[in-house]
């Protein structure tokens, strides 16, 4: 008897179908719930402290009321810009090597393994390492070394970005269909040119996503900055000096015994998340503008 002829079996199939769909929806809700909860709680705790002063003033001395996080927002921007400048080119370059030029070689396997290990290293260890290498030792002829500085903080964050960017770049490049590479080679395009203009370009949406993930991850890092950028309660954009950062400033405000500073810490956490979302959306918008109709 054919399966479709049995009404009880049909009923069971329909029920199973609804059950699996229901479970999938439930799982999705469970994924989104903590995110929404955190965001709502941050708005509840922090939104009331958001005012113009928050974005224009720096930390006030103990005892004075008011104050803001302007120096920390700018500091984070400086640190993240530096980290991106260091982490993204090296990471993408490494990923291109792993996927296109070194595939299957011992060196590539060693690099891939190292990147994976580096990805799993706790951020505080990264901070200590950066401290030992850049802050604790003065490297001859390198002016930014030997003391706490924005440069050291940006470098630590940049190094943390490298493995994520590198491995995502590699994975995205490997996914580019072989046919696309052959098309380029078949036109008499030199290999390096084909890699840069065709393969990397085809994989670029995925590579950009990888960079944004790495960016968002280090944007909230506190531990590596404790040993490198140190934090600063004053205005500074000098790469050679300690610099404030949102996570560090949140840490300072949150650990203080003052209620007003606690509220500022909540507001800081909210602003940090909103700024990350804004930065990621902006990059997505800018990079998606050139995409053609029907491009895959």
């Amino acid at each position, binding site marked *: 008897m054919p399966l479709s002829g049995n009404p009880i079996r049909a009923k069971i199939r329909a029920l199973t179908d609804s059950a699996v769909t229901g479970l999938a929806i439930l799982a999705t809700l469970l994924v989104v719930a903590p995110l929404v909860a955190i965001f709502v709680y941050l708005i509840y705790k922090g939104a009331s402290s958001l005012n113009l002063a928050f974005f224009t003033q720096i930390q006030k001395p103990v005892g004075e009321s008011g104050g803001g996080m302007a120096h920390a927002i700018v500091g984070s921007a400086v640190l993240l810009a530096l980290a991106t400048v260091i982490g993204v080119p090296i990471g993408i370059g490494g990923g291109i090597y792993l996927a296109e030029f070194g595939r299957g070689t011992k060196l590539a396997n060693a690099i891939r393994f190292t990147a994976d290990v580096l990805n799993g290293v706790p951020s505080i260890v990264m901070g200590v390492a950066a401290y030992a290498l850049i802050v604790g030792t003065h490297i001859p002829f390198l002016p930014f070394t030997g003391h706490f500085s924005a440069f050291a903080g940006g470098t630590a964050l940049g190094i943390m970005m490298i493995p994520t960017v590198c491995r995502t770049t590699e994975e995205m490049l490997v996914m580019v269909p072989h046919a696309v590479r052959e*098309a*380029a080679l078949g*036109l*008499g395009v030199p290999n390096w040119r084909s890699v840069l203009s065709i393969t990397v*370009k085809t994989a670029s949406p995925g590579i950009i996503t990888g960079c944004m993930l790495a960016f968002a991850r280090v944007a909230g890092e506190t531990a590596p900055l404790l040993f490198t950028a140190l934090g600063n309660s004053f205005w500074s954009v000098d790469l050679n000096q300690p610099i404030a950062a949102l996570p560090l400033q949140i840490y300072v405000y949150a650990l203080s015994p003052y209620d007003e500073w606690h509220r500022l810490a909540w507001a800081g956490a909210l602003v940090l998340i909103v700024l990350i979302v804004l930065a990621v959306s902006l990059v997505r918008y800018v990079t998606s503008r050139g*995409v053609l*109709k*029907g*491009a895959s």
Partner: protein
Amino acid sequence: MGVGIDVTNLNAWYGTNHTLQDINLHIPANHATALIGPSGCGKSTFVRCLNRMHETNPIARVTGQVKVGDQDIYADAKPVEIRRRIGMVFQRPNPFPTMSIYDNVASGLKLNGYSNRRVLDEIVEKSLKNSALWDEVKDDLRKKSGASLSGGQQQRLCIARALAVDPEVLLMDEPASALDPVSTSKIEDLIFELKSQYTIVIVTHNMQQAARVAEKTGFFLNGRLVEFDETHKIFTNPTDKRTEDYITGRFG
């Protein structure tokens, strides 16, 4: 104008697999030559040896001589230069997905450093007209991605892209096997048009197709060229028993 190809004692390997054994043949200039044979017989490997694409696979190896016109492509040339003279169209249409229709056609020139806008415009138009795609895409040249076209259009786009670098030989590796009958007949008409200007080598599983478009046909079996002759002779009065068995559908 197209040039002839002389192949002498060509052998090719994938790893330890001897995929082509002692191939000798002459492909005439400005004609279409079809290569038929069952899957795995080496016909694709053979065309890939004609523009040195075979060796892009790290485990592949080739010996023997291939002369395109007067040039021995394995002796005194760089693979990159060879592939500019010998265009290739693949089995699955493979336009560059991130590029517009225009950029797809211009890609061979642009990626080789050519940038004169006016000349590029002319070449793109001429190539798309040659591949019978111009009327269908002329309004969306820069707006649409090459990947947004239908399968048959994509394949004609790939032909236009190959023609744009002005090759002397056009290799087609089962160019219509992933297409519907209407698109297939368009591609066949196109081959008919193009062979006045180019030397065309077409690999096909479709024997009617070989009979329709090609003056010469070669039958490959197990890495050997069993028979190579005028197309009508291959299909009406083959010399070799194995050719006869294949074209009458007794195996393969």
